[in-house]
């Protein structure tokens, strides 16, 4: 696919790199000379200029791009670029600078297909590292909905059960399962849950501590405390 990324800073350049590694074609737009040089040294095509100008976007090939990522730190530039790109029929992704704005742009910015707040993802990573071991937050799906990967421990109440015997609270669903040291896969009902196996679960925040207690075997107090730290908002 073809992508236009505005902003060759930390977020933009890294995104461009990941897309290129996956075989996609990326053009960057960046006004700052130092950043332009750095991106070009890494072999990227860079259009020098302001990404909120239609001419610059055209030069970068917005006309035949599949999607545009407006990833600068400047909200005005990002929003204007999305408006123009939307007009050209591009899918649009806008970076925002403060958490509270996520909801506002999701609701009101009709020109923007998706809003991203990079700090949220950074916080998920930091939280996982801090909690360590048995529980890893993968993504926040909605305000109250999270995907977590849990590692079954020896003390877990469900240790030794099969997946079909596993009874999670109503607002939780198993998405994937992996035996110790094996890849995650769609859960097979007959497999048993044992120390070191991993389950990926989609759960409402309200039941997250119950899920943790069942699968990881945390004490109720510790599970509740961890559930409180569940969100990354």
């Amino acid at each position, binding site marked *: 696919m073809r992508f236009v990324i505005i902003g060759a800073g930390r977020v933009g350049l890294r995104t461009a790199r990941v897309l290129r590694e996956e075989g996609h074609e990326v053009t960057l737009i960046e006004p700052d000379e130092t950043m332009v040089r750095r991106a070009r040294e890494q072999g990227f095509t860079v259009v020098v200029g302001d990404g909120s100008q239609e001419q610059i976007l055209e030069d970068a090939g917005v006309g035949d791009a599949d999607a545009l990522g407006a990833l600068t730190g400047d*909200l005005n530039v990002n929003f204007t670029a999305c408006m123009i790109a939307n007009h050209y029929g591009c899918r649009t992704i806008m970076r925002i600078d403060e958490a*509270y704005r996520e909801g506002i742009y999701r609701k*009101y910015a009709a020109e923007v297909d998706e809003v991203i707040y990079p700090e949220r993802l950074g916080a998920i990573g930091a939280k996982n590292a801090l909690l360590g071991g048995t529980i890893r937050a993968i993504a926040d799906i909605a305000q109250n909905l999270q995907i977590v990967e849990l590692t079954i421990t020896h003390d877990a109440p469900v240790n030794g059960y099969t997946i079909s015997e596993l009874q999670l609270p109503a607002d939780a669903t198993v998405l994937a399962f992996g035996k110790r040291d094996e890849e995650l896969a769609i859960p097979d009902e007959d497999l048993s849950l044992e120390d070191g196996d991993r389950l990926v679960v989609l759960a409402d925040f309200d039941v997250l501590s119950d899920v943790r207690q069942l699968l990881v075997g945390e004490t109720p107090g510790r599970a509740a405390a961890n559930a409180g730290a569940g969100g990354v908002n």
Partner: protein
Amino acid sequence: MVTAFVMIKANTGEADRLRDSIESIEGVESAHIVAGDVDIIAKARVETPAAVKEIAATNIQGISGVESTQTYIAMD
């Protein structure tokens, strides 16, 4: 008459509530949720410059969820 534009920076996602509260202030003609580094722009039309200050500094900044305001007085 004095016309003024007040740029409002919020610190809450409840943009609807802020806009509605701002619009209900006497002297505020309209308020819009906008894209960019401010979240809402309100237009006020009042009798005196002092009334503009009253709207921006007292009424709008008194709403919870408003972080700061910046006021521009129209000259035409």
